[in-house]
């Protein structure tokens, strides 16, 4: 397959176009802005030999390709979000040409405006709670069991310690989430992440996103730090502010 398509990164409102100067899409291709009655679609040319139907089905199975495209997509979204109220699009949205881009914006105008209203002046924070792996095992006594009964007792006690640890971890996760939610306009819980992707050995038990008013970031992070200090047995990670990806959903 050959030819060129238009890859959509984001739809923005009140875009300060000059701030996007020099922003590149894939393979160094400069981004373009397609205007439509106050909304701006941020796009770039892509080769349909790479982003066409058949190549895409193959490329999406290739994690290296997905990572490169995902990071470029994300970088552009970051730039746009700093220059506008920005609704990021999901990965690999490809249109035939600018007319098609405008037609999509037209057909979804109300929904897009609603999303932009929801996230205007707000950013997203990522909050994760992680439990150290093997924490219960380390707490076990090192001495060898003196009898079968002793062995079974130790096994039972180890199981109890693991359960206690889980209970405390769940309490911590709940409390952290409650605090985050109380200081946010909205919150969403995401699936815990795969350790193969994160490269971490801990077990993730909370992976949440919070939509926070621009003026309340410090209040939000301070409250979460305080909550984290109450639960030293778990690791609480707070990252942001990020563009409001998790809250830019239609419907």
């Amino acid at each position, binding site marked *: 397959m050959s030819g060129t398509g238009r890859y959509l990164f984001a*739809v923005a409102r009140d875009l300060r176009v000059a701030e996007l100067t020099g922003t590149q899409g894939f393979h160094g291709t400069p981004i373009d802005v397609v205007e439509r009655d106050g909304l701006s679609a941020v796009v770039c040319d892509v080769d*349909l030999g790479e982003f*066409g*139907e058949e190549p*895409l*089905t193959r490329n*999406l199975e290739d*994690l290296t390709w*997905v*990572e490169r495209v*995902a990071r470029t*997509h*994300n*970088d552009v*979204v970051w730039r746009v*979000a*700093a220059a506008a109220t920005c609704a*990021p*699009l*999901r*990965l*690999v*949205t*490809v*249109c*035939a040409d600018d007319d*098609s881009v405008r037609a999509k914006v037209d057909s979804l105008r109300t929904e897009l405006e609603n999303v932009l209203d*929801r996230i*205007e*002046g707000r*950013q997203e924070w*990522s909050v994760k709670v992680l439990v150290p792996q093997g924490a219960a095992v380390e707490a076990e006594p090192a001495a060898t069991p003196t009898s079968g009964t002793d062995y079974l007792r130790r096994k039972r006690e180890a199981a109890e310690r693991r*359960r206690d640890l889980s209970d405390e971890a769940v309490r911590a*996760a709940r409390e952290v989430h409650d605090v985050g939610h109380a200081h946010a*306009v*909205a919150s969403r*819980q*995401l*699936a*815990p*992440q*795969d*350790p*193969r*992707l*994160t490269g971490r050995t801990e*077990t*993730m*038990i*909370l992976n949440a996103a919070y939509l926070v*008013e*621009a*003026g*309340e970031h410090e209040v939000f992070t301070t409250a979460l730090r305080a909550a984290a200090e109450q639960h030293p047995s778990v690791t609480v990670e707070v*990252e942001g*502010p990020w563009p409001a*990806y998790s809250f*830019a*959903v*239609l419907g």
Partner: protein
Amino acid sequence: MTERAVSPVRGVGAPDRPAYGPAPSNLADVLERVLDKGIVIAGDIQVNLLDIELLTVKIRLLVVSVDKAAELGIDWWRTDPMLSSEARDKELAAENEQLRARLRELDSAPSENGQ
């Protein structure tokens, strides 16, 4: 989702511009947002296949740690409607009931204006 008035950013320089933190270096953070979140617009390129493939990638990447957490008995998030079809079913049932109640109200008071 509740909506409140937007308060301005306090800070030096551009008051209406958010100062974003660095983009996540963690691939999982990037993927769960660009694959799973954001606006879904049906592009001109292979809509149906795309959905299937993205789902495959997503499941392959995310499922393992979910199961691991469940093994540990940590599954309270399963009741979150974003994650659990069971919770979603419950939510739908509750929503249906609310809608039915609302319909009954409207039927009994046909002249009432909605908000």
